[in-house]
């Protein structure tokens, strides 16, 4: 375990060495941002709307007491979406979508000697391959989480319109009630950390792949599993520290 941790830290330090030519690396960063950000927008939008809608219906069901104002359902759905569902569930989905792609892409490059070819040319392979993915992860995951929060709350509104469990007016009132900006800050900190975890762990698994197609698949699986575990662990730590 300590051996792996040492290799991981060393790989990260190599990744952020001064690039040979900034322009070439910048183009790679842009490409990765499009891949991570635009490429994940569809799946994040779909899951956010459904999770927001389901959360609102469940909260309304649990608060079916005449003593509790129905607008509280909107408030709980909002805070749950901002603090937990959008950052954590979206990041777990992104670990599957983006993380497996990163691990298998780098792993394939390793087993087909493309990484050796980079090193022979004098290119800092971790810097060229991993740094752009990490930069894309820590910048695009927060943006996706903001989209996810917006669509999650919208999903709750759609659920109110469709189910009639809460009136849309009660829901909107609840969403506006007692909003604390700290919840958004917590969500964004989580998003940055989760983006880093997904990109770096999956890149590490891919970079140290050896063998063939089977091992590339195993690296992708390991990357996703370890990322998910670390996301949940980091979620707990950040929640404990910030709230």
């Amino acid at each position: 375990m300590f051996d792996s941790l040492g290799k991981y830290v060393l790989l990260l330090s190599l990744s952020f060495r001064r690039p040979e030519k900034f322009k070439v690396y910048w183009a790679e960063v842009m490409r990765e941002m499009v891949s991570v950000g635009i490429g994940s927008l569809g799946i994040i939008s779909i899951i956010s709307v459904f999770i927001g809608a389901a959360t609102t219906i469940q909260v309304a069901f649990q608060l079916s007491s005449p003593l509790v104002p129905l607008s509280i359902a909107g408030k709980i759905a909002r805070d749950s979406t901002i603090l937990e569902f959008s950052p954590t569930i979206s990041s777990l989905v992104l670990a599957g979508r983006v993380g497996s792609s990163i691990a298998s892409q780098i792993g394939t490059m390793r087993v087909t000697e493309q990484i050796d070819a980079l090193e022979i040319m004098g290119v800092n392979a971790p810097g060229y391959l991993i740094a752009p993915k990490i930069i894309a992860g820590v910048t695009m995951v927060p943006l996706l989480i903001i989209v996810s929060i917006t669509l999650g709350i919208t999903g709750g509104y759609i659920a109110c319109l469709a189910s009639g469990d809460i009136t849309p007016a009660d829901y909107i009132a609840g969403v506006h009630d007692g909003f604390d900006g700290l919840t958004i800050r917590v969500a964004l900190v989580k998003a940055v950390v989760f983006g880093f975890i997904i990109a770096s762990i999956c890149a590490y698994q891919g970079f140290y792949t050896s063998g063939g197609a089977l091992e590339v698949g195993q690296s992708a699986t390991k990357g996703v599993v370890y990322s998910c575990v670390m996301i949940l662990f980091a979620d707990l730590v950040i929640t404990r520290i910030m709230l």
Partner: protein
Amino acid sequence: MIEIKDIFKTFGENEVLKGISATFQTGKNNLIIGGSGSGKTTLLKCIVGLHEPTKGEVFFDDENFTTMDFTQRVPIRTQIGMLFQNSALFDSMTVEENILFPLNLFTNQSQSEKLDRANFCLERVNLTGKNKLYPSELSGGMKKRVGIARAISMQPKYLFVDEPNSGLDPQTSILIDDLINELTDEYKITTVIVTHDMNSVMGIGDHIVFLHQGKKWWEGSNKEIAHTDNKELNDFVFASKFMQAAKSKL
């Protein structure tokens, strides 16, 4: 000129290279031959720095490559071209982008100068007009030629080639051998080729190093190889009936 001195390489308990020394001359095709598992590719990877030797030194024109760190190695690495066994083309890039890649990173040429160079390299390997194809659209022989074009794009002083003929038909193999031979001669490159193809050995082997059980077993030229009494080398070179018949006629 490349000089290797007393190279040892161990993986765990397995000692793959056991004290190999050799000198590879400029403008010559230097072949490293040997059976499977004899340590040919490991030696090549130790020379280019993909593996660090457990012991021993590698000199590129009297510069000790072994003791250099990553940054110090970059100027030498930009003078190295390498053709990998499976070509190792970047599959997300077109043929042209593959050739432009080292030029974009390590030169300050204008875009038109770089494109001219890429076109020249493609012309040199008889692939004019294939600029926009992706590696997945190329045959094995074409991939090798693009690999060569990429390797020579930076006008290297040293060319390393790992199994250039693996997976190719005899005609294409000869084509690739001839191309490497021409480039070596034309640009006075120090070329090191790892192979077990006897056509290459006989055709372009100016200087041959035969490895057996991780040691240098024999060294000489393609003219000397047919007349050696080294048993292990004879067993390797003349393993087939065809080669035995050819030897009897020499």
